[in-house]
């Protein structure tokens, strides 16, 4: 789909750990831009800096040097609580291990981000139901994660990520724990959210066919962007 205005900008972003001799650069001066409505796959071997980049994109982490701007905001300089607010308002997260609260129903899991937004209980419930309907889980609202399959759990996690109508969805190996058929379903769902809702998606994966669902692939190696290319249209 047509890309809009710039959402995310990395301007010579560095992320370093340790001191002196033992200093390691997870990101070594990365420049990057993602536009609204894009579906970007981020690939690279482990230790390449892709996870660090994702954490910064999701406002979970801040750069050691350089500027990370999100929606024109210098998010890299914000304190913990302001970044938490930013995440709550504009970012949805989907993780490899689903990260749902155990012994908590699907609906309650989906409602969680709304609690921290101060949304009233009734409205929360309605929004959660809508989000669950969007991911095709009508009738499973009162199941706990233990009563759901892996694919269904990931759908709950996606519902939780989109219930706040975020601008950006950050997905960290969303299909890493799923079989091929489930992977296909989840990727179809993400693609649909991207095209229908115009949701910007940044997804880390190390599977080429999963990355193939995205429009663009950014490859990290040793803390640098090694390649950044438009994907060919997939069927």
């Amino acid at each position, binding site marked *: 789909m047509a890309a809009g205005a710039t959402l995310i900008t990395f301007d010579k972003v560095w992320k370093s750990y340790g001191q002196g001799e033992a200093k390691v650069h997870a990101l070594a001066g990365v420049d990057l831009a993602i536009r609204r409505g894009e579906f970007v796959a981020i690939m690279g071997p482990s230790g390449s800096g892709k996870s660090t980049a994702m*954490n910064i994109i*999701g406002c*979970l*982490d801040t750069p050691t040097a350089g500027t990370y701007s999100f929606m024109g905001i210098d998010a890299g300089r914000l304190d*913990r*609580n302001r970044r*938490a*607010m930013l*995440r*709550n*308002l504009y970012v*949805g*997260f989907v*993780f490899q291990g689903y*990260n*749902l*609260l155990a*012994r908590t129903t699907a609906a309650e899991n989906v409602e*969680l*981000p709304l*609690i*921290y*937004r*101060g949304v009233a*209980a009734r409205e929360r419930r309605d929004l959660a139901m809508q989000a669950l309907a969007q991911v095709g889980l009508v009738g499973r609202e009162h199941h706990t994660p233990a009563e759901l399959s892996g694919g269904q759990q990931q759908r709950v996690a996606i519902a*939780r990520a989109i219930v*706040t109508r975020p601008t950006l969805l950050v997905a960290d190996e969303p299909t890493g724990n799923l079989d091929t058929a489930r992977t296909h379903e989840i990727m179809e769902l993400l693609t649909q959210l991207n095209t229908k809702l115009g949701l910007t998606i940044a997804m880390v994966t190390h599977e080429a066919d999963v990355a193939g669902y995205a429009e663009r692939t950014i490859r990290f190696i040793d803390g640098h962007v090694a390649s950044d290319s438009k994907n060919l249209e997939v069927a």
Partner: protein
Amino acid sequence: MIWETVRLSLRSIRRNVLRSFLTLLGIVIGVAAVIAMLTIGSGTTEKVKADISKLGSNLLVVRSGRPAGPGGPGGLDQVVRPLAEKDLAALVAHLTGARAISPASQKQVRVIFGTESLTSGVTGTDSAYLDARDWKLVSGRPFSDSETRSGTGVCLIGETVRQQFFGAGDPEGEIIRVNRTSCKIIGLLEPKGYTGFGQDQDNVVLMPLHAYQRRIAGNRDIDNIYIAADDTTPTSELQPRVEDILRDAGRITPDRESDFAIRDMTQIADAMASATTTMTGMLGAVAGVSLLVGGIGIMNIMLVSVTERTREIGIRLAIGAHEKHILIQFLVEATVLSLLGGIIGILIGLALAGLASVTLTIPFAPSPAVILLAVGFSALIGMVFGFFPALRGARLDPIDALRHE
């Protein structure tokens, strides 16, 4: 938001029933101990006060022998001049501010009626005794003055003596044998029950002092003189007057110590009450230490809980929870937990105190202030001991927390 958090914490408490219960146990035991101790303690204090007022309020008791000094009662070597008729006469003649003055000599004596026998406290006294001790008659009449003077063989008996000899029957007019003398029952004393020291106050026989002296004691001594103050005179004022009169009567020169002692029952009552209050406070403090231990238990479990739920904290932080949300969540959880423990503890403590009041026959005296304090204190313990673990949870880095297995 707060209500939401309370619900959340209740749910997480319910999720780990066994662990929550074990955590509660410390607080439950602590609060139960404090409540039981303080309730039983205040019941005991009441009981002691009631017992002593049974002995007679505003009562001075004079007995022969030196006043008890710091080293206790006088040594064995001293020859004690017993109180005598002339001391009593001097008091009756000169003492102002007294409602009743009465002599009393006592002895444990075998009392016989028919084939039954009983060892009873037999007291030789006069008709003012009932007034001085604030004792009442259920039936019959007190000694007349002429009976007191002449030492007639008449007596008043207590409820225990009546039951032993007459069952449900009427004792009046019956003749009982006291030691080797016989006396006619002319009245029945009101039941008074046991003293706090386990003494049966109803196992008594009263007879005229002269009859007692002649036929039972075999001397003319008076063991005690009971002096009841009138309503406007405090015993503390009466005591020096009594002392002066008795020193005069005994011709004790100012350089010598008195050879009698005056006990003020009001003072004794106050002393005993304050002693039990101190005791109660001490027991409460000891029980309070177990509350502290309970609080440490809460801290321990909350730390475990925070560690165990690191991932959950990570998820919450990632989707937009602020530090304060996490802090409040765990703080509320700890507080709800210890408050719950406090409430259970109060119920158990009150049950224990109730049980104790039945078995020890003391009044059940729960204090709303103490209960309220226990509730407040257990909530405070939750907050104080929950704060550190909660802060630890709130300060977690969401990235590390999410990676936590």
